[in-house]
Each structure stands twice: as structure tokens, then as C-alpha cells.
């Protein structure tokens, strides 16, 4: 479930790098010779490949249940095929549309409110001169990323919940308690708040890395030419970050339909499905809990395909704009 931009970004960069880095092909050797030479390497690949087949590629094929009237006791082999009937059912299911609408609303709110925070924080941290303060802040800011969602929401509940300590303080001070955790109207804000609390510090890491790669002599030259703080930010820092920002934005868009599954499943009870039902929780409740396997799989498949299309679309737009994006078209080193 780790779909943090930072991780995806590094992954993507390495792909690009890998492309440029396999120049010497020894394809001239006959396959028998290579087999004899590489057999140990092939053995090393076996566990990983078995894993990929068992827990990725076979399940991907398992998505065919979306086109079946799947009965668990009959299994995939003997269940009836029913074409796109499940998708037609979804189309007529108001719960599905609620889930889709919630997903999109939450995704847009997250994109608008979460995305700029790590960038802004990285700029502030980078401007700190004292290494001690900078390191202390980073230590604290990275920590929540390693806490589980259950723990994060438990902490939020204990802090902001109806009986939590913030409301305790409010009550002791003679104010009315505020239902931070259970108000469906402000739920998107709560969710983004949790996301910022948990991951903004960690997401900052990648901007800091990009910032540390900026050539300092550019700043010196600009300063010598009389550029002040804001000019340097605008004309040097931000342009240097452009590639990273675009890359993260693309990955974010590809991931837009996975707004944070555990976060929602954990809070669905307290806020109600009206606000907290997203595509992933719909899949879970319809399929695993409700036993309507085919509808669940259809919703899940629709989500997966849409996500991949969005990613591809965002990437090709980036290409048009002259950015490298996630995967290079061919060869180009950047």
C-alpha cells in the first residue's frame, strides 16, 4: 500500500537510468553457452519470479471474475460468463456513483491541499542555515511516516475525538466540543490533515534531495547580479525543481483513485459511508463483506484501468510540454 510519491519517483528514475546503462549486449553468445554461464543467476531469480506470478500476475488474470457471475463454490473455471453485465449493474448502482464521486472529490482536495505542503516545507527547511535545527526537524517530521494508519487514526481520535484531549480542554475552558472526527461535511479536510501529519515530512525528502543537487554557483552568480531572495527562488530554485514537481504530479494523478484505503476503511464507521465510501472501500464491502464478488471485482478493475490510463495520459501531456516525465520515450538522458 506504500504509494508515496517519493518511492515511486526513485523507482521511475532508476528505470530511466537502467535504460541508458545496458550498453554492452553479449547477445552474440549462443543461448546454450549463456545458460551454462548464467545458471546460478537464473536460480536466484526463481523465488522472485514465483512470487510475481503467484501474487501479481495470476491475480491480475483473476480479474476475469469481473466478467463472470462468480460463485465461490463453483470457482473461476465453472462460473457462468456474463459479459459486461457486472459493469452495467455498477452503472445503475447509486452506491457506486457515490463512491466514485467521493473518490474524485477527495482526490482533488488532496491534490490541491496536500501537494504544495511538502514543497513549501522543503523550501523552508532548505533555507535554514543551522544544520542542528534542520536535522532535528527532519528527525521529527519523518517519524509519522513509519506509523501505521491504525495508529495515526488512533492518535487523531485520542487528540481530536469527542472524548479526546483537545475537546477535554475546550470543555474545561467552557466551550462546546467540536466534532472533528465525526462530521461528514469536514471529512475531506480531516483526511487531508491526517495525510499531511503522516506523510508531508516524508514527502519533503525528495524535494530536499533535488534542492541539494542545485548548483550553488548559480545562486552566487544571481546574488552577484543583484537578485534578492525572492528572485533567486523564482528564477533558480523553482526551475531546478520543475522536473521533480512534474514527475510527482504525474504519479499523483496516476494514483488519484487510490485516495488512501486504510484511512477510509478505518473511519467509515464513525463518519458514515455517505462521506467515507471510496472506490476501494466499495470494492471491499460489496465483494468481500457483501459476497457480491463480481461487482466488487468490476469496480476494482474499472479503478485499476482508469488509474493506469490517467497515469499514461498525464505522462504524455508532460512529454508534449517537453518534460521527461516518468518513462522516457527512447534513450534520452536527463
Amino acid at each position, binding site marked *: 500500500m506504500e504509494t508515496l510519491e517519493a*518511492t515511486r519517483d526513485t523507482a521511475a*528514475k532508476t528505470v530511466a537510468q537502467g535504460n541508458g546503462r545496458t550498453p554492452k549486449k553479449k547477445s552474440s553468445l549462443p543461448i546454450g553457452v549463456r545458460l551454462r554461464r548464467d545458471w546460478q543467476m537464473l536460480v536466484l531469480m526463481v523465488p522472485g519470479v514465483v512470487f510475481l506470478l503467484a501474487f501479481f500476475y495470476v*491475480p491480475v488474470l483473476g480479474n476475469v471474475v469481473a466478467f463472470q457471475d462468480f460463485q465461490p463454490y463453483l470457482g473461476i473455471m465453472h462460473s457462468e460468463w456474463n459479459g459486461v453485465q457486472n459493469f452495467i449493474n455498477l452503472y445503475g448502482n447509486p452506491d457506486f456513483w457515490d463512491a466514485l464521486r467521493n473518490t474524485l472529490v477527495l482526490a482533488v482536495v488532496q491534490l490541491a491541499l496536500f501537494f504544495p505542503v511538502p514543497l513549501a516545507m522543503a523550501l523552508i527547511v532548505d533555507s535554514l542555515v543551522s544544520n542542528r535545527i534542520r536535522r532535528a526537524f527532519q528527525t521529527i517530521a519523518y517519524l509519522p511516516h513509519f506509523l501505521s494508519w491504525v*495508529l495515526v487514526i488512533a492518535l487523531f481520535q485520542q487528540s481530536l475525538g469527542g472524548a479526546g484531549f483537545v475537546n477535554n480542554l475546550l470543555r474545561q475552558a467552557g466551550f462546546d466540543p467540536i466534532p472533528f472526527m465525526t462530521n461528514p461535511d469536514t471529512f475531506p479536510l480531516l483526511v487531508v490533515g491526517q495525510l499531511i501529519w503522516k506523510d508531508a515530512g516524508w514527502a519533503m525528502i525528495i524535494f530536499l534531495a533535488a534542492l541539494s*543537487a542545485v548548483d550553488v554557483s548559480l545562486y552566487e552568480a544571481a546574488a552577484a547580479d543583484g537578485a534578492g531572495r525572492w528572485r533567486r527562488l523564482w528564477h533558480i530554485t523553482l526551475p531546478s525543481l520543475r522536473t521533480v514537481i512534474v514527475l510527482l504530479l504525474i504519479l499523483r494523478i496516476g494514483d488519484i483513485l487510490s485516495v488512501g484505503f486504510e484511512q477510509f476503511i478505518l473511519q467509515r464507521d464513525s463518519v458514515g459511508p455517505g462521506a467515507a465510501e471510496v472506490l476501494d472501500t466499495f470494492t471491499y464491502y460489496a465483494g468481500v463483506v457483501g459476497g457480491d464478488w463480481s461487482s466488487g471485482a468490476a469496480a476494482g478493475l474499472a*479503478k485499476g484501468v482508469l488509474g493506469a490510463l490517467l497515469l499514461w495520459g498525464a505522462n504524455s501531456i508532460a512529454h508534449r510540454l517537453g518534460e521527461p516525465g516518468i518513462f522516457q520515450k527512447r534513450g534520452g538522458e536527463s
Partner: protein
Amino acid sequence: MSGRTEQVGRPVWKERPAPLYQTIKAIVLGGFALAIIVPIMVVVSTSLASDQDIIEAGGYVLWPSHPTFKAYDTLFSGGLMGRAIGVSVFVTVIGTALALATTIALAYATSRPVLFGRPVLLLVLFTLLFAPGIIPMFLIVKQLGLIDSLWSLILPGALGAFNFVVMRTFFMNVPQEILESARIDGASDFMILRRIVMPLSKAVIAVVGLFYAVGFWNAFFNALLYINDTAKWPVQVILRTYVLQGKSLSADQLGVEPLPQPQSLQMAVVVVALVPIAMVYPFLQRHFNKGVITGAVKG
């Protein structure tokens, strides 16, 4: 931090920020840090507080005046929570070992231009773009007979594409000359991996191992999906059931009586889920900045 270190660190072209900016920076960074620290501190303090402290403070204490481990005694004296900790530890240890072995082997095998190296690499990277979906995953785990088995929490997490990429990048940066000379001396691939590549990669193995460990310890949804038997629940599911959903930990579930203030007991559950992370975190943190992450980013 004295004024002198600041003077040394500041480049000549960088002017000292105006007091206004400095205040804003301090508020933003300080506020964020406090927002992270205070909730954690309150939870830890409350778990350690005596019943009397909690009643006086009206539910939560910032600092326990009469610290007691009563809540922890109750938790660890067996029953559901004791078993859950056992489950979580088992899954984390075995899962991490298995995942590390799989990842190291696959990363090494694809880090060099060998037969099928390239297609296998693409096979892994494709998993970054698409997820199989909840229902097919559930069906495959069920088909393999892993429902209600702890292996359902371990096997699906045995290879993380991101960890694989970090590992492979590191292996590719091991100087080729060392590998070549070992090869000329007659070392096999297995031996090169064990005697040369792995000792050179201790840092990255440690970090990736800790990433896996954190993942296994934190896994909640897999347990919710695949484990129905309460005796096999990991800590995270207990945390959800008894703290978030507020189901009461009754005396017979814990196997003991009498109960301390439930508030401190609930907080103790939170702390139990938190402590292992807090313990490995310093080790993780040491490697972040200049180590794996930056290295992989700069490529």
C-alpha cells in the same frame, strides 16, 4: 546552536533573513513538530498514569505524576494481547527474512547483464503501474488455502517493487572491476553475492530490511481480509477493534482481573503498537539522507 556556527554556515551571498521571516519559519516548523510530538507524548503519558492521575486530569495527562506500569502488566499477563504481540513479532521476523532473501536474490540477478535479466526486470517494474485489485488477491489467497494462516500476512508481502529498485540500484553501483577480478579468480555467482556484494551492501540491506519490517509490523488490511480467527490477530487489528471501535477488553479476554482504568489500558495498546517503530527508527534515520534515498534519487 551558537551564533558563531550560524556565521560559519551562511554563504556570503545569503542575507540574514528579516525577523518577520524568521518568526514565520519558526512558527511553521515548530508548530508542525509540536503537532507530531504532543499527541504521542499524551498517549505515552496516559498509558503510564495511575487511575488517580487520569481521574484528576479528566481523561488525559500530559505528564504522569505517579507513573505506574499497571496497564502494561495487565496487557502482558497473557490472553488476546499477548498472543497478538506474538503474532506480530512472528510475521515481522519471518516476513522480513523471507522478503530480504527474495529481494536480494532477484536484485542481484537483474543487476548484471544476464540471460532473462531484462524481461524479469520489466516484470517487476510493471507491478509499479498497476495493482491486481482486492477481490482477485483475496481469491488467490483463498485458493492457496492461506485464509486464517499467518502465511497470508507474509507471502503477499515477500517482494516490494520499491525495495527491489533501491537494492538493485545499489548493486549496480558496486564497481564492476571487483566482480570481474573475483570471477577471474574462479568465484561463482553465488559466492560473489555472498562474499563480495552482500558485505559491501550492508547499509542498504539494513535499510531495506527495516522498511520491510516496518511494513509487516504495520500491516492491517491484509489481516482484516485474511484472518478471521481472533487468536491470530496481529497488534494492529487489536488496536483497531479495542481503541478505534471502542470494544471493551473484558476481563476474560485478557484473562485477568481487576482492570485498571480503561483509558490507560487503551493507551497502552497504542504504545505497544508504537514502541517497535520508535525503537528501529533511530537506525533507519541514520541512513536516510545521504544513504539510500538521495543516492537513488540522484541516480
